[in-house]
C-alpha cells in the first residue's frame, strides 16, 4: 500500500509540474506577443492586433463564441462517437477473422490515405443536408485511424492471453468484451487520439461550407471582413476548447488503461 501511495503522490507532483510548466510557457509566449504588438508595434497592427484589441473583442463576442461552441459540439460529438464506435466495431469484426482481413486489407490500405476533405464535393452532392455532409467528413476522419489501430491492436494481442482465454472456455461476447477488446485497448486509444486531433482540423474545414455557426465558422466569417482581432480571439477560444477536450481524453485514457501504467 505504501508503494501505491508513493506512486500516487509522485503522479500528483508530476501533474503539478506539468501544469506550472505549461502555464509558464504560455505566459512567456503571450508576453512576447504583447511586447511585439502592444508595446513595440513591431508587427503589422492590422494582421496582428495587440492583446488590448483581442481580449476586449473576445469579451464582447462571448455570446457568439459560446453559440459557436455549442454548434461545433453538436457536429463534433455525434460524428466523433459514431466514428469511434464504427471503427472499433469494424476493427474487431475484421481483425478476429484473419481470412476476411486478408481480403479487405488492400481495400483499407487504398481508402485509408484518401483525405476526407477530398470527398467534400461528393458529400454535399449526395447527402441531404449540409450538417450531414460535415458530419460524414468528420466521421471518416475518425473512422479510419480508429479502424486501423483496432486491427493493429487485435493483431498485437499477446498470444498467451488468447491461450489463457481458450483454456477458460471463453467464446463469443465474453471473449470479445473481456479479453480481445481490453487487450487491444492501448492501440485503440492511440487511434482515437489521432482521430480526435484530425477531427478538430476537419471540424473547422467542414464548417466552412453550409454552416450557420460554429467555432470554425466564426474564424472564417470574420477573416472575410478582415476583423483580425475577432479572428485571433476565435482561434484562441478554439485552442482552449481543444486543450480542454484533450485533457478529458487523457483522463479517460488514464482510467481505462490503468493496468498498462504499472507493468
Amino acid at each position, binding site marked *: 500500500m505504501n508503494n*501505491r501511495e508513493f506512486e500516487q503522490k509522485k503522479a500528483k507532483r508530476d501533474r503539478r509540474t506539468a501544469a506550472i510548466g505549461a502555464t509558464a510557457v504560455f505566459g512567456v509566449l503571450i508576453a512576447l506577443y504583447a511586447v511585439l504588438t502592444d508595446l513595440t508595434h513591431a508587427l503589422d497592427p492590422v494582421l496582428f492586433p495587440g492583446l488590448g484589441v483581442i481580449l476586449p473583442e473576445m469579451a464582447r463576442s462571448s455570446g457568439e463564441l459560446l453559440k459557436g461552441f455549442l454548434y461545433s459540439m453538436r457536429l463534433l460529438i455525434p460524428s466523433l462517437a459514431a466514428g469511434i464506435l464504427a471503427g472499433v466495431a469494424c476493427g474487431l469484426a475484421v481483425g478476429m477473422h484473419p481470412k476476411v482481413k486478408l481480403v479487405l486489407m488492400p481495400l483499407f490500405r487504398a481508402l485509408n490515405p484518401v483525405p476526407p476533405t477530398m470527398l467534400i464535393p461528393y458529400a454535399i452532392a449526395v447527402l441531404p443536408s449540409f450538417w450531414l455532409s460535415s458530419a460524414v467528413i468528420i466521421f471518416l476522419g475518425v473512422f479510419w485511424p480508429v479502424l486501423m489501430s483496432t486491427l493493429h491492436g487485435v493483431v498485437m494481442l*499477446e498470444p*498467451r*492471453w488468447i*491461450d*489463457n482465454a*481458450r*483454456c*477458460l*472456455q*471463453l467464446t463469443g461476447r*465474453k471473449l470479445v468484451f*473481456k*479479453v480481445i477488446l*481490453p*487487450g487491444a*485497448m492501448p492501440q485503440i486509444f492511440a487511434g482515437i487520439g489521432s482521430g480526435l486531433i484530425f477531427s478538430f482540423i476537419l471540424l473547422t474545414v467542414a464548417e466552412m461550407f453550409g454552416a450557420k455557426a460554429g467555432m470554425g465558422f466564426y474564424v472564417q466569417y470574420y477573416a472575410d471582413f478582415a476583423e483580425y482581432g475577432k479572428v485571433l480571439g476565435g482561434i484562441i477560444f478554439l485552442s482552449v476548447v481543444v486543450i480542454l477536450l484533450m485533457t478529458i481524453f487523457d483522463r479517460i485514457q488514464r482510467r481505462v488503461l*490503468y*493496468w*498498462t501504467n*504499472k*507493468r
Partner: protein
Amino acid sequence: MIECRNLTVAFQNKTILDRINLTVQDGAFLCLLGQSGCGKSTLLRTFAGLLKPTSGEVFVDGKAVDGPEKACSVVFQDYSLFPWMTTGKNLMLALAASFPQKNKAEIRNLAESYLEMVGLGGVFNLYPAALSGGMRQRAAIARAIATPSKVLLMDEPFGALDPVNRAMLQDLVRELHRDSRGARTVVFVTHDVDEALYLGTEIAVLGSSPGRVIALEKNPSSRQLPREKLFENESVISLQRKIMDIYRSDMNEKLNSRESFHSGNGI
C-alpha cells in the same frame, strides 16, 4: 487419466517431440522434467488442447483432445491473470464460464472463498500488477482449482519466483493435491530436479532434440516426508542421483552434437 499415444510435434521439419507414449493415472502428480527447450511445455500444451500434435493423439478421460477442454485447467508461468481486471474479477470470469447456472453473487462469494483458501484474503479488488509474483501465482492456482476440472496442468508455475515464495507455493500445491484425495490429476512442468522430487508422485524425464521420454520413475516416498526430511531418505536420494545422471548424459549428448552450436538452441 491422461494418455498420449505416439505423439509427435514438428515445426517446419524440426521435430520437437518424437513419438511420446505416456499415461498419467487418475490422482497422480506427474512432473515433466527436462532441460529448457526439450519440449516439455510443448507437451503440456498438447495436453491442454492448445496445440494440435502433428501426429498421434492425446486422451483425457478416454476422450480425444481436440481444443481446450473443461476437464483441464491451466496455470501458466506468469500470465494466467488478465492485467486489465482485478484479481477477483479474474477469478469470477473463470468461475462464470464453469458455472453458467450460478448468479453473480454466488460467483463472487465463490471467488472470494477460493482467494482466501490460498491465503489471499484482501486482494479481491487489486489489479494483478499490484501483486507480487508469488501472490499472482497464488491467485492463478486459486483460479485453477476453483473450476471443477479433474486435471490441473502447470507450466513452470514457480520458475520466476524467489526461493522463499517458491517453497511456500510448492507446499500449497502439494497440500491441495493431497487434500483432493485422488480427485485431481496434476501435470507439472519444471526443470528443477529437487522440485520434481518434492512434488511428483511420478517423474518423467524428457530428453532433448528431439524431445522424448528417457525415463519414467515412481517417487513413492516423498509424499510421506516433510521438506526438511526429504533428502535424508534413501530412496529419494538414489532417485535424485539417478535422475541427475540421466540429465547429465542427456546434456552432454546435446553439447557434443554440433547441431546445438549451429542452431543456437544452446542449453
